[in-house]
């Protein structure tokens, strides 16, 4: 007798899974980063403003910083620019930019025209550095703690909401310890 109830039971289980799937679906296409909790990649790349100079990860050791991957060709980056400027003016965490697969002149023009939220900007023409960070689309933003561990990754345009709810608490909560 009970075996006739099996299909219904199986379906109920499936419906639950699908419901959970819908709840998660705004994050679909968002793959959890394997870098979370691991050391951020070390880098030494030419600076956008002065290619003779380098932007080095070693210089950033001991500080929180945001690592923001962007490009002038990227619509979402245009969207998040205002938010990045706000973060910059707040002065809590510096933003290091990675100009990904972009044209240097255009990038400089962009920053001049729209304002520069970055403490420094590294250029990645070959795409190698972005691969090290597991970047697969722009914009992406990483939060790195003073010990050099990646503690948070945001995919897509950064919003003030994300800043106040995800990034700021992590930075303020731990004065020195890793999260």
């Amino acid at each position, binding site marked *: 007798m009970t075996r006739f109830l099996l*299909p*219904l039971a199986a379906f109920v289980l499936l419906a639950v899974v699908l419901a959970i799937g819908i709840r998660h679906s*705004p994050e679909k296409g968002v793959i959890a980063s394997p870098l979370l909790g691991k050391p951020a990649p070390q880098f030494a790349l030419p600076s956008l403003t002065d290619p003779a100079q380098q932007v080095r990860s070693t210089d950033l050791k001991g500080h929180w910083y945001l690592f923001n991957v962007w490009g002038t060709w990227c619509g979402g980056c245009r969207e998040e620019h205002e938010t990045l400027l706000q973060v910059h003016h707040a002065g809590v965490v510096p933003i290091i930019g990675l100009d990904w697969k972009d044209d240097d002149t255009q990038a400089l023009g962009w920053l001049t025209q729209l304002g520069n939220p970055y403490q420094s900007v590294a250029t990645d023409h070959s795409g190698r550095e972005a691969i090290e960070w597991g970047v697969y689309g722009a914009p992406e933003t990483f939060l790195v703690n003073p010990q050099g561990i990646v503690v948070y990754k945001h995919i897509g345009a950064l919003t003030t909401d994300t800043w106040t709810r995800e990034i700021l608490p992590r930075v303020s909560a731990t004065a020195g310890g890793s999260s």
Partner: protein
Amino acid sequence: MLPELGHFALILALLLAGLQAFFGIAGPAFARERWSNAVTFAVAGQAVMVATAAACLITSFVNEDFSVAYVAENSNSALPLFYRVAAMWGAHEGSLLLWILLLAGWTVAVALGSGRLPPRFAARVLGVLGVVSFGFLLFTLATSNPFLRLDPPAPDGRDLNPILQDPGLAVHPPILYTGYVGFSVAFAFACAAMLEGKLDQNWARWTRPWTTSAWAFLTCGIALGSFWAYYELGWGGFWFWDPVENASFMPWLVGTALVHSLAVTDKRGLFKSWTLLLAILAFSLSLLGTFLVRSGVLVSVHSFAADPTRGIFILAFLIIMIGGALALYAWRAPLLRSSAGFELGARESFLLFNNVLLVIAAATVFAGTLAPLISDALKLGTLSVGPPYFNPTFMVSMLPLMALLAVGIHANWKRGRLKDSERMLLLTLLAAAVLGCGFAYGLYSHASVLTPVGLTLGVWIVLSSLLDPIDRWRRGLTLPRAVLGMTVAHCGLALAVFALTTVQSFTLERDVALAPGGTATVGSYEFRFGGVKPVQGPNYDAVAGSVTVTRHGAPVAVMSPQKRSYWVQHQVTSETAIRVDHGNNVLLALGEDLGAGRWSIRIQIRPLVSLVWIAAFIMAVGGALAASDRRYRTARALESAPVEGAAGQPG
């Protein structure tokens, strides 16, 4: 004006569908004959309203009415007329309307063909179909209205997705949906039987032609989709185990099992609850497929724009329809018992194995398709499933099935008497092995272990299928259409197996960089690149390459692959050049401009790939032949005598 009319027509259709559902189910339940009789009027009314709405939408496209948001999203003033019409179902909202239209079509067909059905049963069938229509119409009006207006109207449209600007768009979705939606009829028959509380062998006989026709359409639809992907995508792939492809393949697998299970229920009154469950399952998978591609729960380049609110609505609909049907099943199925018997080597056994293996195949595809979703929901991390999973696991159930098929068609009902066919079966197996291995090792120098197995199975099934028809012909007996249809369909399947094995084993592929005048050799073909020249289309600019193809020195063709840049959506597509020669498909696709006239070009030689789709169409033809057998329309001469423990007669 026209969009408002269309919108209004949809609202009326919703009301009529509701009436259809109400009269159809409540009428027989409360023994109100007037209600039961009113159902056909509701069916007709709903069909007219839905057709009106579809006509309004198509006309809006033809008239380039960019005040309609959906038209503005999917059309453009430069879009040729042919595509303006087909664009109606080019995106989510319109394709839903197509779904509803085809459902109305099937409902009308059932209403027209229900003359020989008992009136109360017919009313119930139409009532259940009404419930489905109601759900889809509600969903469309609430979340996916194609008639929403833009104010002010857009100056021009965003153009139809260039990949869809292809004749395939005109045929693939309508035919695929016809099949997909057609399983709702079997579903409705099943629900009606469960509501009625009895299921006799006449039920199976009535259901068979409807199910087989839907199955034939679905077979064509899937084949068309595969063929379309093949020549549109540019690198010779025709099946990717993409979630959306799987969403149409699972109903097909279960539908095949259903077609065969119905045969057993029809003939022997066995497997009743099993057949009921398959009928529910087939349509449930169709509904689930609809859910998967529109709700954003699955990542697929194939899916429609993701929208969680739509997902929730469809899920609720799924729960009501499928949950309701399965609850009915849990309630009624225990009453269906039969005390018929059969032996191990009987046809019933083979059909049982057939069903089990097909369901296992469907379950495997299901597991693989939903694995990422399940893994994510249960916090097990992101899981990745692709062809490396599907290909081997699918074959695990399919290869045994092919072997059983060759033997099973000679098993008799009840007492198999396979001994009678043993000699011929062994002979045909031997012949098949010789032909298969000869083909593999004779024409080609290399082959993996599975290649001769697949080829042998293909030939064996054909030879085995032909034994009975040839025998009948020799003895001067007629071949009933259903048997002819079965033979044709099985041969089609065998050809598909043969062709697929060949393609998988012997395809050659090379990417080369050529300057004008450069040559490359692949297999027995030589290719000379003649450079590119600019070409202009109705709504695109293109460069067309020129490649001269020869085989062992003899000229074959000059092929012209293109790379198109569409004006409006700035999308670049690669138009493959395909040529059929000596049973091989030669494919050329342009890659990148490497500078100084050099281009990267992909060359593929795919032997017998066209046979795959031809075989699928043969299968569908077989199904159509079988469905048209007039004996399905005559009730059984002997009403089956009541058997101990037979279904009670409540309701």
